[in-house]
């Protein structure tokens, strides 16, 4: 702001209009306006070009195509879909496939990553070396090479007729992994319900145990009761329904198998590739998290005679998780993004289907915009969740 105070003590006033150019505030404003103008100008220029180019080349624009009939089939769908559905639904199928392969990949990567990460800090020398070697290799070979490698492996599995028998429970062939599954039975729905009930009950039990401990000082171990209730309830339901034990075993028929459930080789290759790749990074995150809890914390806990289990549960884990969870989430996000290389192995994920849509309709701009937006939403939602988590668990400081 310009203050019109007259000069005092015969000193020159720094506030003459010509000095405006030297004013920090004015300069800052000028730079910003210039930058904003440049951004707007470039944006307009690009937009203008796109519009002109599309017009000149007579390319259709707009998202109207999403409502058109797709006229192509998709190999793996989680929802009903046929060639008579719209492009929008085809893309939805792709999105769900992206999410399902990512979910499976995340579970696998987490299990492997945590195991290897713990092995990395084990004081058993050979185990530590194996873990280190694994991490180095898996992290440093491009994920796409790993996926292509696993695709080659799955394709070179024997044909269905010579499929590998998985101990009578299923088959492994170049058509994928086919499992025996229980024949659908009304009991299953109830068992699922029982499982949920069991989990809820276990949680309630845990709370009760804590209250009990706080009220009486008696520590009740709820680990085994929890396990029992979570496994037991569905089991009881199953028995109550007369233990329906019909299992649909896959059988070779026609080109492939009937019965059971088949996971496609593309899914297996993609999931294996991206989750092994991520597991290397997760292992490092876990290791860092474990090492991040200062030694002094454990010593202090020991000096108040806490037992190892309690030290783990009340001192080490809460602190390690704060370190582990944020980078872990970004690994999950990058695993989801990596699933987009599905297109090289032919798994029908969002990008693969988007690609087909792009070719069918020729509307590259719109199709790519759809893909980018979806991934952006996934990233933004995750990072919002992550920020909330960080705020909730942040260690309060001055």
């Amino acid at each position, binding site marked *: 702001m310009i203050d019109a105070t007259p000069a005092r003590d015969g000193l020159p006033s720094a506030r003459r209009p010509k000095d405006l150019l030297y004013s920090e505030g004015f300069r800052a404003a000028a730079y910003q306006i210039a930058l904003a103008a440049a951004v707007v100008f470039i944006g307009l220029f690009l937009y203008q070009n796109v519009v002109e*180019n599309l017009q000149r080349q007579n390319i259709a624009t707009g998202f109207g195509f999403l409502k058109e009939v797709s006229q*192509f089939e998709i190999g793996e769908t989680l929802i009903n879909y046929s060639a008579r559905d719209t492009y929008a639904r085809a893309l939805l199928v792709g999105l769900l496939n992206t999410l399902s392969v990512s979910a499976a990949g995340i579970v696998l990567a987490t299990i492997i990553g945590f195991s290897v990460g713990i092995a990395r800090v084990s004081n058993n020398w050979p185990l530590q070396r194996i873990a280190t070697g694994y991490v180095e290799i898996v992290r440093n070979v491009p994920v796409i090479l790993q996926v292509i490698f696993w695709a080659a492996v799955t394709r070179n599995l024997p044909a269905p007729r010579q499929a590998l028998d998985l101990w009578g429970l299923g088959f492994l062939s170049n058509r994928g992994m086919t499992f025996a599954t229980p024949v659908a039975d009304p009991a299953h729905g109830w068992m699922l319900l029982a499982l949920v009930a069991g989990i809820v009950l276990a949680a309630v039990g845990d709370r009760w145990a804590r209250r009990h401990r706080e009220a009486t000082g008696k520590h009740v171990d709820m680990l085994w009761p929890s396990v029992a209730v979570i496994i037991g309830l569905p089991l009881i339901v199953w028995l109550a329904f007369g233990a329906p034990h019909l299992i649909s075993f896959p059988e070779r028929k*026609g*080109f492939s198998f009937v019965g059971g459930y088949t996971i496609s080789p593309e899914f297996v290759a993609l999931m294996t590739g991206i989750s092994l790749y991520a597991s290397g990074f997760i292992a490092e995150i876990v290791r860092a998290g474990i090492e991040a809890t200062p030694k002094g914390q454990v010593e202090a806990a020991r000096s108040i005679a806490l037992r190892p289990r309690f030290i783990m549960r009340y001192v080490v884990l809460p602190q390690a998780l704060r370190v582990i969870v944020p980078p872990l989430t970004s690994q999950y996000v990058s695993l989801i993004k990596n699933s987009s290389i599905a297109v090289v192995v*032919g798994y029908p994920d969002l990008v693969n289907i988007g*690609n087909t849509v792009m070719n*069918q309709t020729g509307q590259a701009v719109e199709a790519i915009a759809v893909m980018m937006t979806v991934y952006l939403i996934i990233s933004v939602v995750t990072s919002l969740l992550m920020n909330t988590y960080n705020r909730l668990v942040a260690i309060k400081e001055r």
Partner: protein
Amino acid sequence: NSGDTLAAVKARGEVLCGVHPARHGFAAPDSQGKWSGFEVDFCHAVAAAIFGDANKVRFVALSSQQRFPAIQSGEIDVLARNVTATLGRDTALGLNFSPPIFYTGTGFLVRKDDGITNVEDLDGAAICMAPGSTTERNVAQIFAARGMKYTPVVIENNKQLVDAYVTGRCDALTKDKAALPGVRAVDTENPDDHVLLPGIYSKEPLAMAVRQGDDQWYDLMKWVVYATFNAEEMGVGQANVDEMKSSTDPDVQTLLGVIGDNGTKLGVSNTWAYDIVKQVGNYKDIYMRHFGPDSPVALDREQNVLWTEGGLLYGLPMQ
């Protein structure tokens, strides 16, 4: 700027032609990186027409996904990459199609020992195909019409696609029928273990595409194609073109630029058609070079013969 492709090409000194990266018979680089194939020859023909030198062409290998953006954006001048001419592409993609240079349809390559003899046997099969191809839609229709099911395995990368079929991931590989013999001949370990299902199940007219809005350039494409048809019809081939120059048939004379100024009207030299036939050949020459009985990708001409012989090739008169 819409009318200046020809001028730009002349100024550049070469034609940029988008082709398939590896489709034996149509377009593929040999181990020395030299391109050859049916569609490649049509690119040569365009170059011959413009420059009188069939080699003034540069090939740009394009995946099926990249082919339309490449032509739309002007990265290439002409697209000769197994493009099926359809109304949708003509309009929504802002393209113009030359007269079809190859009539084909969806075909299926299957393993002999699977005992498949026609499409009806494919119920429940896993079928490998490329994304965004007309094939993808045709297959959907073929199976829907017969009330059959199949599992599409859709792979963009052609190598990966063929690999998926050859290793047995799929029971059938589907592509334009014309493309399958190439796969069979080159990519399979033992070509005799594989057969092409007989019959054609859809219309797949392959044509060259140019950007909409440049009529001069579009005209040139059309007439390059017609010139190869007409040359065959008139019996003018690579072998006899020089003798035919002295033919007294006015049609032949017009074709070869001995009389008239067709070239000037098209914006190229009057010997343009002569150059095509001399350096590349007429339709039959081109066809036989790549699909003839001696080539690795032998293909019957089927509909790809002159209208006079009951085929679909019909060159418009060149007066």
